[in-house]
């Protein structure tokens, strides 16, 4: 397990290094010149050049990248050109808010999705199963922003039960904080729930037909033990992988959701940075989002290895 983790960490570092290069190159290729943006429309060429020198933009790309990467390794993400502040604190705050959204949404998806999937599998072919399947199809067929709009209309505009957007720090009290989370979380959940429920259902159905489930029944174990202890533990293996991928999707989907609900997280920060052509901020944001995505995948793989003794022991032996 240790060797496996080490290997994966090495790969992770390699992937991030490659990504940092790509991010750097792509953002460099974006239209518009940073120095003239900062200097303003009417600045003279001298002023623009001076700014460029100050920012190190006259250096060759390799050197620029080197300085940027070295800064990141020291924990310095640079300064935002537009906000004229160090990026790290801004980014961390936004990241924390987005993570809250993502983690809560993921937790709800996991619990409700797995629950519905198991229920549908056990009741296979009966009414509950058909209901879950029907809802799943609906969830998959309808685009997620549609739910967002419907939710905003119903709960926010029409019933006026929940705030339709914005954010309240937890310092303002738990309820206001939580109430701002409800609609974005529900939207994210609706986006992913159907897939998890269906996946759990199908792997659960497979597992319920295995010999070890039959043998557990032959041992006279009550059905609840057969399902929860014998079947679910094995049926969850594929679900865990997909949940981890979903975590990445949530991080991506957050951009859309945050915009709709004007929730001040990473998504909005990225949008802001792109609109304002704030290169360092764009680079830092994308890099952090990518790193979060990779870490989510790594966690999923380690978790998968952990719950699957076959893999876990394979590693030990290696």
């Amino acid at each position, binding site marked *: 397990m240790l060797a496996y983790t080490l290997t994966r960490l090495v790969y992770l570092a390699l992937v991030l290094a490659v990504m940092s290069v790509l991010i750097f190159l792509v953002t460099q290729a974006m239209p518009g010149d940073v120095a003239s943006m900062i200097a303003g429309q009417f600045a003279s060429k001298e002023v623009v050049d001076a700014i460029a020198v100050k920012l190190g933009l006259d250096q060759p790309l390799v050197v620029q990248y080197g300085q940027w990467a070295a800064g990141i390794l020291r924990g310095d993400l640079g300064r935002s050109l537009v906000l004229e502040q160090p990026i790290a604190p801004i980014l961390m705050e936004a990241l924390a808010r987005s993570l809250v959204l993502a983690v809560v949404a993921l937790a709800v998806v996991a619990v409700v999705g797995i629950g519905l999937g198991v229920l549908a599998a056990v009741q296979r072919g009966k009414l509950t199963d058909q209901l879950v399947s029907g809802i799943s199809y609906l969830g998959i067929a309808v685009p997620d922003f549609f739910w967002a709009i419907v939710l905003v209309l119903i709960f926010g505009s029409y019933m006026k039960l929940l705030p339709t957007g914005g954010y309240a720090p937890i310092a303002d009290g738990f309820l206001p904080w939580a109430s701002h989370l409800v609609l974005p979380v529900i939207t994210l959940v609706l986006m992913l729930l159907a897939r998890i429920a269906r996946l759990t259902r199908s792997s659960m159905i497979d597992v319920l*037909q295995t010999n070890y489930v039959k*043998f557990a*029944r032959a*041992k006279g174990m009550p059905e609840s033990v057969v399902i929860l202890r014998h079947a679910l533990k*094995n049926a969850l293996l594929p679900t865990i992988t997909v949940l981890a991928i979903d975590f990445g999707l949530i991080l991506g989907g957050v951009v859309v959701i945050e915009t709709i609900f004007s929730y001040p997280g990473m998504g909005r920060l990225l949008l802001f940075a792109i609109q304002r052509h704030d290169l360092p901020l764009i680079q830092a944001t994308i890099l952090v989002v990518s790193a979060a995505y990779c870490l989510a995948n790594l966690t999923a793989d380690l978790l998968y290895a952990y719950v699957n003794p076959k893999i876990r022991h394979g590693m030990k032996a290696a």
Partner: protein
Amino acid sequence: MMTAPQARPAVAPVTVTAPAPEPAPLLDVRGLTISYGNARGTLRAASDVGFAIRPGEVMGLVGESGSGKSTIAMAILDLLGGGGRVDSGEILFDGVDLRRLPAAERRALRGDRIAAVFQDPFTSLNPALTVGRQIAEPLIQHKSLSPRQAAARVLDLLAEVGIRDPRRVTAAYPHELSGGMQQRALIATALGCEPKLLILDEPTTALDVTVEARIIDLLAKLCDSHGLSALFVSHNLGIVNRICQTVTVLYGGLVVETGPTGRVLSRPAHPYSKGLVAALPRITAGRRHRLPSIPGTVAKLSGPPAACVFAPRCPFAEETCRSQPQAMLTDAAGDGVRCWKADALAGTPWPDEESAARKPAPQAPAQPTAPLVEVDHLRKVYGANRSILPWLRRAGTVAVEDVSFTVGRGEVVGVVGESGSGKSTIGRALLALTEPSAGTVLFDGTDLTRQVKQGDQDLRRRAQLVFQNSAASLNPRKTVGDAMDRPLVLAGRADAEERRKTVAGLLTRVGLPSAYADRYPHELSGGERQRVNIARALATDPDFVVCDEAVSALDVSVQANILNLLAELRDEMGLSYLFITHDIAVVSHIADRVLVVYGGTICEEGPTGRVLRPPYHPYTEALLSAVPRLAEDGQEAPRILLEDAAPTPGGQGCAFAARCPRKLGAICDEQAPPVHRADDGHRIACHIPLATLAERAAVFPELVGDAAH
């Protein structure tokens, strides 16, 4: 009424003494009818099945696949899945009709009073839970033990089923145990609550013969010491002979014969039982003796039968058989048979197919011609990894270590070994499906690997493979004709009409109607699919066919059929086979020469008669003694029971050293055994001197006489 057993004139005059007071049966199944229903109709899996198992008795329930034997076992456990339901009948356990009990009470009986062990130990254990926990579960559930008490009991149970380090096994996950250990763990689970009845559904079918022998021994011992009754579901008559006191033969969901095992297997009364016994390959029989087989496929009923179910396949069938359903006839001793001609046929054996029609088998071609396949110092290592990351580097596992042999033209070479022996790897290397790590394979004088790399399609054409799993090797969405067409197209046969003719010809050649070209694989039986696979292999007109466990998944009757077909094709087309199998009896039937492999090395090699009759090498000897036999094949040889240990390929000493009952000592662990050679090509790799081995070989008296064969 066909349910009422009718009086049957006794075969021999039975001296009617006062009947001994019969103990009430522990399990009494009466008139059990089970059907599976789906949208396309219903299928009767069991019709009016009745049998009884007395306390302490082990009853065998035998029949081909599709005969309904497992269904009945599952019905007793109330675990019929997939749309199966019991239509009528009684299942009396200790006098109580289980069918009348509520589901919760039946569940409470399961694992407590009635315990089960299923076929495949590996899939019967939950991969995500430790073995100890799985054994403890029923103890906690039914006997209300605390987890701690249960854990202590688990250790005792494991010790009782012959596991030497119970502590390690309790903490292990299933995949860390060998198949034999897994099956022992399952048996320990079943024994935990001290049940009265065991339901054993093919408990050893998935195991190697040497392991199987030990498990059967263990089961017999346990049934004896605990006074257990058992329902032993099996397709293997040899094993039934070893462990069961009585046997019930099923055909098409009907009981066709019941009686004491010894009598049923030595003097079967029902034609179907006769066929089953006759089709069994025997080690004692000489090579090229044509196996009797049962033509056709198992009957599938949708309602009560209107004629004798076996009539379409019965060589003794008459008009009466086809117009009247047969009732169970019981003789004075209580033996039953469902055939009105049974008494008339007493003593008539299953017909020996066309002993006249068959031309005498040609002698194996004289050796001088250059062999077709030459394997020289073949070595194969899997999973070696030369990563730049030091913790990923791996030496790999040795599958085959320094193997050399030849296959002559028109010769059948059998490779016998258990799982992990490297036998399949050898076959794959001979077809260039895997690249040797060292050594060479010459096919007709040219280096196989190099030729194939250079894109030599001709070699691919000349060497073909027939697999074990006949279902998986055919694409379910393609008709038989399309599947067979493909190799022809690849071989560059352009004319579609001509190809169609070839396909029809090939189908006829393997004994299938040419109309089968339009069928889909699922419309065929297992035996028919295997015939299609053989036909497909023949499509390119090969010289050499590797049969990898080609008959292992088939019922004996069908297996006999396919073996005969392969032998015929060899005689007619001069094919060479490499016949890979775990079944030493099968090999003795078809092979001219045998290689006995263990742990990736050849233990013994030579002409079949010389190697098997009698065996010399300690491993060959153990393998042979492990094969269950019927009583009529002579007295049982002393059984040699091997330890459950994995082979240790790639080591310095003898690969068999860890399990060898005749191990000499450190020399076996440290030095590769020397090879004793005889001039007829018999080679034995063992540290024991040849003279001593020969002495010991005399222990198999019934086999010795055949040595000159």
